[in-house]
Every structure is written in structure tokens, then in C-alpha cells.
């Protein structure tokens, strides 16, 4: 049994929140730069140039890439041989409070979905925990903007809808979103599980590097096919037309019930932010 002081978790969450908001992950930058090189439509080229300039300024000046610094999603993979000394939930929220306060990040969380009073410090975090073998804690902080979150959809398909039904639903979600989620987007798809697990898988898919394909060839091919189909829609950067509508499609799956085929599509803008550390 290894003891980890919860204050270390606070410090890590605070630092990761600031870094994730100011520095775009290398895989996303590389995707955008490749897309710019492959883009033939002048308006789209101009938009991608400005996007590249923007993340350069953000990184150089340590300012947020986007003003929507998101609701702070925190994923913890906790080794089963770890004992956390202190209150875990409080430690994570304190990390968010510190990171968003000292990092000059926007406070975008309301305490109640209908009465809508801002909590003033961006807490609470959206906390996801997973128990894994080992004696370490892996922390991933992923600030999620809501322009793209609002364009996400979930559907309980029938098993007979099959792979064609999944493709049609993903394309319909991207089509309906159009310019709203600030394309180019990253598309996280969760297939299987239950109603809630499908949504979780879709969010988890957005945490995976876009350079990494699904480990099963069957799904890696589906990711490639969906990316090509999405980029044939012509929506383009910011919705002004062009080839670059999506930078990547990441699919995560799990077993499901004989009667069901849940599919969730979680949309992220080009600011697909996540940063990890291991304690």
C-alpha cells in the first residue's frame, strides 16, 4: 500500500488545468498544420492560418487558446494499491479553484442547471475515477468547451441498424452541428455499453491522441472511413466551406446488451485540450 497525500493531487490538477488551456497538444497542432497544407479552398486556408497563429500566441504568452476555458473534466486512474490521505473530491476541486484563479482562466460553471448562479471558481470538476492495478495515480485534466459540447448527441440504435446506422448517426450529428462547434472538430464516438456508458466512451475517445488509431483494425478502418465522409460534407473551417471539417474521428467501444446498440457522438472543437501526469 502506497500513501499519496491529496495535496499532491491538488497541485497537479491546478498545474495541468493551466497548461492544458494554454498549450494545444502536439498531435492536434500537427493535424491542423497537415490539414492546412492539404486545403485547397482559399477561405479555409485563411482561417486555418489564423488558427495556427492563435495557438502560437497562446503558447508564447501563456494565455488561454480559447476564452471558453471549459468545465474542468478530471479523469483519475487510481491504482488499487494506493491509499489517498485526505479528501479526494475536495482535493480535486481545490486544484480547479487554484488553477482557474491563479491561471486567469474563465469561470464558466453554474451551481444549478436551472437557477444558474455562477460558482465563481469553476468548481466542481467533472470527476471520473477508474480503479486500475498498481500503486500510482494517473491524472488527466481536460477542460471542455460547451460550444462543441452542445452539438453532441446520443441515440439508442437497434442492433439491426448495424454499422450503417452508426455511420449515418455520426454524419447526421456533424451535419446538424454545421458551423456551431467551431470546425475543424475532433469527433469522439462511443459505441456499446449502456445509455450512460456510451456517452462516457465518447468523451474518453476525445482523450486519446489523434495519432493513435483504435487498436482493432475493424474500428480503425471505421474511423478512417468516417473521417473521409465527414470531410466530404464541405462544411469546412468555421463553416465557410472547405475540406477540413474534422481533424480526426476516435472511436471507443465496449460490450453491450443483445437488444441494444447505443451510440454517442461527443464533438470537440480544434481546441481538444488534455494534459496528463502520473503521481
Amino acid at each position, binding site marked *: 500500500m502506497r500513501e499519496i497525500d491529496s495535496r499532491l493531487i491538488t497541485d497537479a490538477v491546478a498545474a495541468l488545468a493551466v497548461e492544458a488551456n494554454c498549450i494545444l497538444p502536439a498531435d492536434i497542432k500537427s493535424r491542423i498544420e497537415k490539414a492546412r497544407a492539404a486545403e485547397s479552398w482559399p477561405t479555409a486556408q485563411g482561417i486555418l492560418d489564423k488558427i495556427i497563429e492563435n495557438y502560437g500566441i497562446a503558447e508564447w504568452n501563456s494565455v488561454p487558446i480559447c476564452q471558453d476555458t471549459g468545465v474542468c473534466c478530471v479523469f483519475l486512474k487510481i491504482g488499487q494499491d494506493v491509499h489517498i490521505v485526505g479528501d479526494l473530491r475536495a482535493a480535486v476541486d481545490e486544484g480547479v479553484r487554484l488553477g482557474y484563479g491563479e491561471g486567469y482562466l474563465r469561470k464558466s460553471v453554474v451551481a444549478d442547471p436551472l437557477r444558474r448562479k455562477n460558482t465563481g471558481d469553476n468548481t466542481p470538476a467533472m470527476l471520473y475515477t477508474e480503479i486500475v492495478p498498481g500503486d500510482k495515480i494517473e491524472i488527466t485534466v481536460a477542460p471542455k468547451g460547451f460550444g462543441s459540447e452542445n452539438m453532441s448527441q446520443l441515440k439508442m440504435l437497434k442492433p439491426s441498424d448495424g454499422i450503417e446506422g452508426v455511420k449515418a448517426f455520426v454524419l447526421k450529428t456533424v451535419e446538424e452541428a454545421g458551423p456551431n462547434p467551431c470546425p475543424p472538430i475532433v469527433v469522439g464516438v462511443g459505441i456499446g455499453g449502456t445509455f450512460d456508458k456510451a456517452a462516457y466512451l465518447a468523451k474518453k475517445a476525445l482523450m486519446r491522441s489523434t495519432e493513435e488509431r483504435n487498436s482493432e483494425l475493424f474500428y480503425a478502418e471505421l474511423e478512417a472511413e468516417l473521417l473521409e465522409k465527414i470531410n466530404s460534407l*464541405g462544411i469546412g473551417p*468555421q463553416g465557410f466551406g472547405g475540406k477540413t471539417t474534422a481533424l480526426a474521428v476516435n472511436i471507443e467501444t465496449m460490450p453491450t446488451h443483445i437488444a441494444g446498440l447505443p451510440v454517442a457522438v461527443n464533438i470537440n472543437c480544434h481546441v481538444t485540450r488534455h494534459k496528463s501526469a502520473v503521481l
Partner: protein
Amino acid sequence: MERKLKLPITREMARDIKSGESCLLSGVIYTARDAAHKRLVELLEKGEKLPFDIENATIYYVGPTPAKPGQVIGSAGPTTSYRMDAYSPALIAAGETGMIGKGKRGAEVVEAMKKHGAVYFAAIGGAGALLSSCIKSAEIVCYEDLGAEAVRRLVVEELPVVAVIDSEGNNLYENGRRAYLEGAEK
């Protein structure tokens, strides 16, 4: 080629700006998003005076990040506009001539734009760090309790935007995509 526009935008100027034009805006704009729009329209419904002059005003849908020491304002890119659709027709009728946001607008907004003469611009979503460099001053006008959502008076210099929907209802989201797809087929 970018068209340089000095604010305020009059009704007449608004009718002259065409969908698809890239523009650089200089002058005074006001910020407001969901919660501020709700309050502004409630004032209009009660027949009360707005906290700033809405005549020929341009409203930017933005909730900036807090300014770091030495900064005028933090990152300040546009938020998605459709959430303001319920309120925009009333503000346009009251005098608003320009809106800056991103994403689609509802038919009721486009109708009000055609009727009164107003233009809908998009700024680049997700380019908050770049856009903030065009903001030369920022002061809170009202609704400070809303934090990032407070109404601010900004002085901007050559803020890059694209006219998406003009006062005739032409829409770049439809026309730009169609033009690209037609070009791509050739």
C-alpha cells in the same frame, strides 16, 4: 481583400455590407451573451432604458477570460450565437445594427435583420488569444455580478470578422459551402 469599417454601423451602412465580405472593425462595440441578453430584453419589455445606447450598436457575443496584469482583456473569441436568437429580434428593433458571434441564426433573427437593416458577422471561434490583441480598451458597463458575462464597452482596432448573413438574408454558411462543393466537383 478586407473592408475596413468604422463603427458605429448605421442602418444604411448595414444594408451595404454583403454576405461573404471580410471586414476589419474599428471603434466601439459592446459585449453581451446569454444572461446579459436576457436582462436587456427584460428592460425593453418593461419599456425601460438600456444601460448603453443601443442605437446603431454592435454587440459581440463574448465572455472573455480575466485579464492578466498588464493585459487589457483576456482571451476573447466569439460564443455560439443561436443562444441569443430569442433576444436578438427585440434588440435589432430597438436599434442594434451589428452582431458578432459564430454559428447559425434562426429565421426570426434573419427576418428582423431584413426588416430593420442589420448584419451578422462571425469572428473565428477558438481564436480568442489572437482576437484579444485587437481590443484596445475594455470597461464594464453593467451587470458586473455576471462575471465573464457582464456587459463591457470595448474599443477595437481592425477586429477581423466575416459578414455571414446580410440584410437581404444571404448566408455564407450556405453559399460558401455550396461554392466549395461545386468547385471540388470540377
